[in-house]
């Protein structure tokens, strides 16, 4: 339909344009329920926070450039590394993958016109934005959380950290968790119920499987974190005794609860990256993924098994050997589904005819870094070795290869890959390749020497280190490389920014991609598809006959559903047409509700319980407004 539309078809397109037209200007963005606009807002918010986290990383590296560094005071260093962790994990990677990529692409890939709950989708974004601001107010007020991103008690208790900085962490993460929970419920229902008729589960793209797995993992992992943070705040603000060993509490309770969340979290971070990789690889190798069903199964298995391994973060707390050995075995088992996916990508590249354009280069970088991070992860499942290098720079090296190398590289590749779809313009390929190599080399040289420093006995979270232990040279190299890496990231942003204004127009399908989003115009119209697409395989764009059929259906007005905000709802497994869903239009209530919620958390932080209850009542009123007038879906 993106090609030539006949006058008859154009009538339907015009009708859709009228029905789905978005409001203009600031009000339009504030009240939008369009998943693409929400995705874009997620993208820029997460990108800004990535910048903040990146600056924090550079400050850390500058401080550690040489022994006895004096760039930051010890107190400032502790706040900076804590904020770096919180920002990258909670405010950048998850919102960037699920929020930005998931929001923008999922409905497109499954041939829907929006998410299942468009207003709740907007609400998720506004809560995320508010929680990000909430956390950064802590830094702005001069004392941010400073007990590390895993915030062990009793260091984080009122006794040892009497200021309100940790309260920003405790309440902020619960606040942020509400956003994520709402978002993943939306994703799961969207994937289950809004797939284009014909897209049965076995025809769903692997990208969507990855996001489905992530959504379930988040849904079940977040409660543990929220409960842990609730206990923390009850202890800190109301004198409860959950974590106080002197009164029957248990400091290890925090560690258990945190890592029951924290380990699935690692897979929550990496799985969307797997999904992006499985979207990019078939396109650039010009073939289908090798072993599609096994890869889909592996994606789900990773998310599931991730819940059974948390004690491997606690091998040094003095648990009985039998406990640690059980969790070491579980940690080793999880290698298998990861290895399946790894070799499925490699086999696809080997058997296909790969074309090494910039997005593909980032995926190759991702594969290389994932192998390194995966292998160092395996070594950490060897308990005695883990007990040596735990909390040393070896661990920093390991998880930066996994989280930066393996999770962020696909994000960067995905930014290049879908840039033409989102903007309608093509980026500069030469600059793209240069930016890849700069980022790749920068990443490797920044993080690889950290393995060696860990083996040499350099502990993590040290605001400085003495001369004479042999740490100086490698730290200096890492710091220089970190700035190279930062340069690479900036060059990506500049490439995309300049291309947005000056890049050549690219048409709807510059890559000959395999999934549905390439069938609609670039950028996609507010209604995504004039005709809800026909789907007969997991690679619908390679089914040319189906796409021609869609063009003929547009002529007949079949599957257009132009009388109002409509999208088909289908059955969970076979995606048979079940009902015509009426989607809500724009609404001001999501940002209003998010603001009231921000009021609740601010008042909890300040200890004004009655005002907090007042804001909770304001939420109830906002929800009444939400449901009150003509906006009923």
């Amino acid at each position, binding site marked *: 339909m993106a090609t030539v539309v006949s006058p008859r078809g154009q009538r339907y397109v015009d009708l859709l344009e009228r029905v789905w037209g978005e409001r203009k200007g600031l009000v339009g963005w504030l009240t939008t329920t369009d998943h693409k606009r929400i995705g874009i807002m997620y993208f820029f918010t997460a990108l800004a926070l990535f910048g903040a986290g990146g600056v924090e990383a550079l400050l850390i590296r500058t401080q550690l450039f040489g022994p006895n560094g004096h760039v930051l005071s*010890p107190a400032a260093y502790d706040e900076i590394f804590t904020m770096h962790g919180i920002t990258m994990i909670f405010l950048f990677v998850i919102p960037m993958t699920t929020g930005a990529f998931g929001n923008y692409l999922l409905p497109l890939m499954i041939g829907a016109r929006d998410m299942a709950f468009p207003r709740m989708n907007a609400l998720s974004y506004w809560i995320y934005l508010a929680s990000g601001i909430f956390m950064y107010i802590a830094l702005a007020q001069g004392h941010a959380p400073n007990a590390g991103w895993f915030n062990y008690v009793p260091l984080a208790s009122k006794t040892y950290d009497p200021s309100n900085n940790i309260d920003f962490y405790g309440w902020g993460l619960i606040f942020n968790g509400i956003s994520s929970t709402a978002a993943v419920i939306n994703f799961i229902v969207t994937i289950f119920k809004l797939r284009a008729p014909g897209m049965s589960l076995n025809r769903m793209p692997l990208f969507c499987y990855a996001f489905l797995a992530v959504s379930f993992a988040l849904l079940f992992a977040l409660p543990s974190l929220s409960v842990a943070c609730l206990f923390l705040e009850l202890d800190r603000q109301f004198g409860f005794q959950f974590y106080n060993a002197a009164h029957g509490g248990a400091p290890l309770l925090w560690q258990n609860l945190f890592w029951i969340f924290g380990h699935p979290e690692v897979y929550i971070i990496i799985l969307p990256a797997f999904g992006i990789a499985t979207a990019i690889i078939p396109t650039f190798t010009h073939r289908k993924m090798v072993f599609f069903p096994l890869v889909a199964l592996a994606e789900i298995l990773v998310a599931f098994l991730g819940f059974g391994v948390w004690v491997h973060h606690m091998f040094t707390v003095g648990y009985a050997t039998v406990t640690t050995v059980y969790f070491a075995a579980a940690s080793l088992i999880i290698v298998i589904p990861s290895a399946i996916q790894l070799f499925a990508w490699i086999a696809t590249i080997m058997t296909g005819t790969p074309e090494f354009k910039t997005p593909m280069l980032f995926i190759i970088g991702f594969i290389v870094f994932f192998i390194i991070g995966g292998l160092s992860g395996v070594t950490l499942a060897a308990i*005695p070795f883990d007990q*040596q290098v735990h909390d040393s720079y070896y661990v920093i090296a390991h998880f930066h290869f996994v989280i930066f190398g393996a999770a962020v590289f696909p994000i960067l590749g995905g930014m290049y890959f879908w840039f033409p779809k989102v903007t309608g313009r093509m980026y500069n390929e030469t600059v793209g390749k240069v930016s890849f190599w700069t980022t790749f080399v920068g990443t490797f040289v920044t993080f690889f020497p950290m393995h060696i420093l860990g083996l040499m006995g350099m502990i993590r979270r040290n605001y400085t280190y003495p001369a004479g232990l042999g740490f100086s040279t490698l730290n200096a190299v890492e710091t220089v490389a970190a700035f190279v890496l930062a340069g690479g990231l900036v060059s990506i942003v500049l490439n995309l920014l300049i291309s947005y204004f000056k890049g050549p127009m690219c048409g709807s399908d510059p890559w000959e991609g395999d999934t549905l989003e390439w069938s609609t115009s670039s950028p996609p119209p507010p209604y995504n598809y004039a005709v809800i697409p026909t789907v007969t395989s997991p690679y619908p764009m390679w089914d040319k006959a189906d796409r021609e059929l869609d063009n003929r259906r547009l002529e007949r007005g079949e599957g257009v559903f132009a009388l109002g905000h409509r999208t088909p709802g289908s059955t969970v497994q076979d995606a048979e047409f079940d009902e015509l869903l009426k989607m809500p239009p724009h609404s001001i209530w999501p940002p209003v509700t998010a603001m009231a919620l921000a009021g609740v958390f601010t008042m909890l932080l300040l200890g004004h319980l009655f005002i907090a209850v007042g804001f909770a009542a304001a939420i109830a009123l906002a929800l009444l407004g939400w449901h009150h007038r003509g906006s009923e879906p």
Partner: protein
Amino acid sequence: MIVVGGLLASGCGRQSIISNQSPPAHGITVLWWWMLGVAGLVFVGSVAFLVIGYVKRHTPGLPFLGQNELAAQGLVLLFGIGIPLGVLVALFGVSDVYLIRQTAAPAPNTTRLTIHVIGHQWWWEVRYGDGHPVTANEIHIPVRTRVNVVATTADVIHSFWVPQLNRKIDMIPGQRNRVLLYANRSGKYRGQCSQYCGLQHANMAMFVIAQPAPAFRSWLAHMSTPAAKPTTPQARAGERLFMNSQCSSCHFIGGTPAQGTVGPDLTHVKSRSTLASGMIPNTPKWLADWIHNPQAIKPGDRMPDLGLSWGEVHQIVAYLQELK
């Protein structure tokens, strides 16, 4: 290049796990080299596959096997399940069944000596037996002797780690964790708190000093004696000042009215080689600087700036210099 050079450098570090000096640390190092070797093979092999993919990027299908989907799937099964399974089972057996026995807490009655190490923000209290002698930041042990370390904490979570001698063990409120300490030969081994414990986590080092049994016994006997009486007028003035100022409310000096327990025991402070938990050498000049303005040296430390004049500082230094 980087790898080799770096690892060579790590071999001679004072806090490196590679330059191990005990059987458990040695076992872990050997395990590490094996894991590095196998991981290197896996890495090179996987990257070789990618290189093959690049070299024959214009022809579909595998080398030799051609466009055979079953072969591609077999490759995934072999390298994704078959080979990893074998490697992982082997790794599990070696590390988590066999080697783990060496790094586990020592069985009762297999050790000749028990030392209590108590983590504080940010220094280490060291007690021999259940009471005295008490010292700080330097743990003397007899060489080639199994020593049972009981690791506890007085405040937040710390972690006891002497990489050349053994794995680390966390110190957790309400918990008594134990770890074996053993040194093959005499020497001074650096260790450090490895669980983030607040502002001065980076400067919470200690030393394990392994010495021949006779030397250890005489050291221990000396440590059990009360503090020496000051001999010079300057030192006597320092003692009076110490006892009448805030110093004595935090520090303990055996045989004197100073009975504080907040800071390190100073009964034989001159016998130690460093101050402030391994941060500065224990010389009169550094000691004077430390007493005069500890916050300038170790910001956030529990030892406050006492506002003493340089004259008073030098008196106290003279006193402490005699606490050998």
